[in-house]
């Protein structure tokens, strides 16, 4: 049985590679190699190894937002494309992680513990009159998942076909991904219903650790050695799920996290993505309303670094998520940081328990 890998690139949208934008060139590459699933997500705020802030708060700065591009396929396809992605990227971060594809003939449900389930589907696919992403969120909510966030892609590939959003288009199959946090049992229980949905979702799962839920500390990021038995570095990823409207000291939590991490030079980067729909804590699944006081959508902040820096970053995050927020941690077996003060890491996957 072949495994599946997820390659994720974190970069600035305006970066160029020759005459084309890097992001565009990456999606062209995924199309050329018929990558099963890929998605480009435009971020709200973030920074990279040079600690330059990207934000949509200022109109001039919002012209070059942080973006996240994820690609998912078999070990062979991702393994072959990874070096080409690295060659395209002058500055940014690339990670490669192991994922389980659920629902194929060789479906393997996760055994135990906490999992992140990612569900990719066409952004405007509907079930009856309900948007597909809302139906999926309702299902996950019914199965008592801890949280879910629907992120709208602007470009991507589905089954090897390019699906790019256009201004004048129905954008039916432009990818959207829902990332949900739950237990393996919940994932197993929800899976048959998910796969039976007429919107043909692609479902994958990754093992994670839930560090905080609704501001309550459950577990610190687990201690992970800096290198594996072959000397390959190990990395960790923190993901913080909060709401656009929850604040810390008069500032939305995600902005406060980015500000503090930059100020204390605690991490080499962070990216914040804003969802269109979702839930966590006690709230039922929801998005923005037409008339409202402040936006209500969920946001996701991602920090990837060495286990040592993640421990430091977690202390800051812990303080800022004293009342709200779902914080998860996981091991990242391969990371390549390009264009910073020094190039770090590599694309060879480390082995960890």
């Amino acid at each position: 049985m072949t495994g599946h890998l997820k390659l994720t690139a974190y970069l600035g949208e305006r970066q160029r590679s020759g005459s084309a934008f890097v992001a565009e060139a990456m999606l062209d590459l995924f199309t050329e190699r018929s990558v099963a699933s890929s998605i480009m997500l435009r971020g709200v705020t973030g920074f990279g190894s040079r600690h330059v802030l990207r934000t949509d708060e200022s109109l001039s700065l919002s012209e070059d937002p942080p973006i996240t591009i994820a690609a998912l396929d078999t070990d062979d396809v991702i393994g072959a494309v990874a070096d080409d992605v690295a060659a395209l990227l002058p500055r940014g971060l690339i990670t490669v992680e192991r994922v389980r594809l659920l629902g194929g003939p060789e479906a393997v449900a996760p055994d135990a513990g906490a999992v992140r389930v990612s569900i990719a589907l066409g952004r405007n696919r509907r079930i009856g009159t309900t948007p597909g992403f809302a139906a999926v969120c309702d299902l996950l909510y019914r199965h008592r998942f801890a949280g879910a966030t629907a992120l709208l892609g602007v470009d991507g590939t589905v089954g090897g076909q390019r699906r790019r959003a256009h201004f004048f288009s129905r954008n039916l199959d432009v990818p959207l991904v829902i990332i949900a946090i739950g237990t393996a049992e919940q994932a197993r229980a929800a899976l048959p219903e998910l796969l039976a949905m007429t919107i043909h979702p692609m479902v994958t799962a990754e093992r994670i650790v839930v560090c905080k839920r609704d501001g309550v500390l459950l577990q610190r990021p687990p201690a992970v050695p800096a290198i594996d038995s072959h000397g390959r570095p190990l990395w960790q990823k923190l993901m913080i799920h909060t709401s656009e409207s929850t604040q810390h000291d008069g500032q939305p939590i995600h902005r406060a996290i980015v500000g503090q991490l930059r100020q204390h030079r605690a991490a080499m980067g962070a990216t914040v993505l804003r969802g269109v729909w979702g839930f966590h804590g006690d709230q039922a699944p929801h998005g923005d309303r037409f008339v409202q006081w402040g936006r209500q959508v969920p946001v996701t902040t991602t920090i990837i670094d060495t286990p040592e820096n993640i421990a430091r970053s977690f202390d800051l995050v812990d303080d800022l998520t004293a009342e709200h927020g779902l914080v998860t941690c996981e091991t990242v077996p391969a990371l390549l940081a390009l264009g910073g003060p020094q190039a770090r890491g590599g694309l060879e996957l480390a082995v960890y328990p």
Partner: protein
Amino acid sequence: MNVALWAGVLVIGGVGSVARFMVDRAVARRASGAFPIGTLTVNISGALLLGLVTGLTLSHGVALLAGTALLGAYTTFSTWMLETQRLAEERRTWPAVLNIVLSLVLGLAAAATGHWIAGLL
């Protein structure tokens, strides 16, 4: 009005908006706080210069190029409103109110100061 003047408005207007983009970006990157200081800097400096330009007795053509084309393109009402709305949408009420009040107070003071400096010249 002649073709040269129209062409001047086009070109100098373009220069003004590029200047706005550069100034806003440079200031916003350095400040990186919640407050949209880049746009404030642009609007206040623009108001000061426009006060100065209108205070000087310039010919019609030069006033059009410097005032309407250059400073009209340099300053921005829409960005001021958009960034205030973005603050409000994250429920950052005080920065949003401050952005309106501070821009009005400093803007009026800057325009008056520009006018006063022109009187001295």
